[in-house]
């Protein structure tokens, strides 16, 4: 299978060659946008992401065989333009509480309540992060990009990725710890 860089190169003169880039990556880019902005905005912005990519394809660095970081970067820029929608989405998620089944066993209810409380806390913590820190954290936690891929996506040095991630995680852990001091968090090994 041809790599992304080859396909994008061919599409410079033959625009229709760009289609496989969409077919390969659109589901994941859509899911990323849906996680951050909700389904309706994602449906629109996934198209915007690929239209922008298509328009900018001649600036693509052919050294990068995999187009994912580039596409995530474009999508993240679009998220930045919809910051208000993103905060609205977090608030909405906070409002739409986890549904509880009254008939389920007591310990299951307790587990659900705990999970729900935790989700609310996390959602709040996310809403309160600086935008740049949130971008890094979510690209790593949700999209499982490596540090290098995040650096390429956001056009920042790898060192900045690390420091933003540390700051974001510290803040998230503080929010979680504040309310539930018994929660113990071990350091996870870096994935980068």
């Amino acid at each position, binding site marked *: 299978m041809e790599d992304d860089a080859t396909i994008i190169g061919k599409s410079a003169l033959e625009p229709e060659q760009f289609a496989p880039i969409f077919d390969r990556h659109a589901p994941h880019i*859509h899911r990323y946008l849906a996680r951050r902005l909700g389904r309706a905005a994602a449906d629109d912005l996934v198209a915007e992401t690929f239209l922008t990519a298509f328009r900018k394809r001649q600036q693509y660095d052919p050294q990068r065989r995999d187009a994912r970081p580039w596409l995530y970067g474009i999508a993240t820029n679009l998220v930045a333009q919809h910051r208000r929608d993103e905060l609205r989405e977090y608030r909405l998620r906070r409002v739409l509480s986890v549904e509880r089944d009254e008939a389920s066993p007591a310990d299951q209810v307790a587990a659900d309540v705990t999970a729900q409380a935790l989700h609310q806390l996390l959602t709040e913590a996310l809403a*309160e992060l600086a935008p740049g820190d949130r971008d890094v954290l979510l690209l790593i936690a949700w999209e499982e990009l490596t540090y290098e891929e995040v650096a390429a996506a956001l056009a920042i040095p790898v060192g900045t990725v690390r420091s933003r991630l540390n700051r974001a995680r510290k803040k998230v852990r503080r929010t979680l710890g504040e309310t539930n001091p018994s929660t113990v968090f071990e350091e996870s090994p870096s994935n980068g």
Partner: protein
Amino acid sequence: MDDLQLLRELRRDTPLLESDELKPARARLAAAMDAERIDGERSRRSVRHRRPVRRLMMAGWATASVAAAIAAVLVLAPDKIGGQVPAANAEAAQVLHNAATAALRLPDVEPRPDQFVYTKSRSGGSTQETWLSVDGTRDGLVRQTPADELESYPVPGCRDGRAATTKGGRMDPEQTEPCTPTPAYLPDLPTDPDAMLDYLNDNHSGESGDPNAMGKDVYELIATKYLRPEARAALYQAAAKIPGLRAVPDVKDGAGRPGIGITWSSEGKTGVLVFDASTYAFLGMADTSATLEVAVVTAAGRRP
């Protein structure tokens, strides 16, 4: 479980879409690819018929042929995109002119800085009521009614560059963050169509000159700000001048109310603004949202 693991759990349920669910998005890309291919072929065939190019940026374009470069630039001016029916454009402009005339007949209320703009809207099966501070410094409120369950959350006002943070649906005035006020009413909006067009060009989101993004900016102003009749009329007149405009017949807003659609999107029924076919009042965004009521009130939480 560590914090990254917990975060992953948070959105575990977000599905990866099947390809047919992504068809509308793919169609928009396909339309852009087609437009380039056709324009590229045309300009290769006849150099003399090459169209004037608005913004040709050669810098940074590695190995592009002149044909491809021109084709790419033409994408930025979708009034040239294939399949554009002149009648649809004329009809869309007429809808906006009629909407402007209708807007001038609306009662003119000048909001005071200490008041709130009340908006009731409907989207995706839930009703939302918002009270947003006219000058952006007072604490506003959002009430969401999903499935008979009433929930609300505050929108902290921005005073002296600081806004309270929110936690669990409550404001925490002890914890503040930097902010700039977001007024629900912009007193200095132009009331002249040309000045309004300049304003849109100066305050655009997305790429400069991208009509699709400008269409969204127009929608943002209509749907999220309080517009006095003259500014509203100027906005509709200015919108009629944005290239790529076309009418979409038989659309429904997010509450199912039928109307005439106008859009700058080159494909499908996304980003379509819906107007009432007889009163030319703005109804909402096709299949997505409906603006049910807009009013100026004296306190957050108070209905008109």
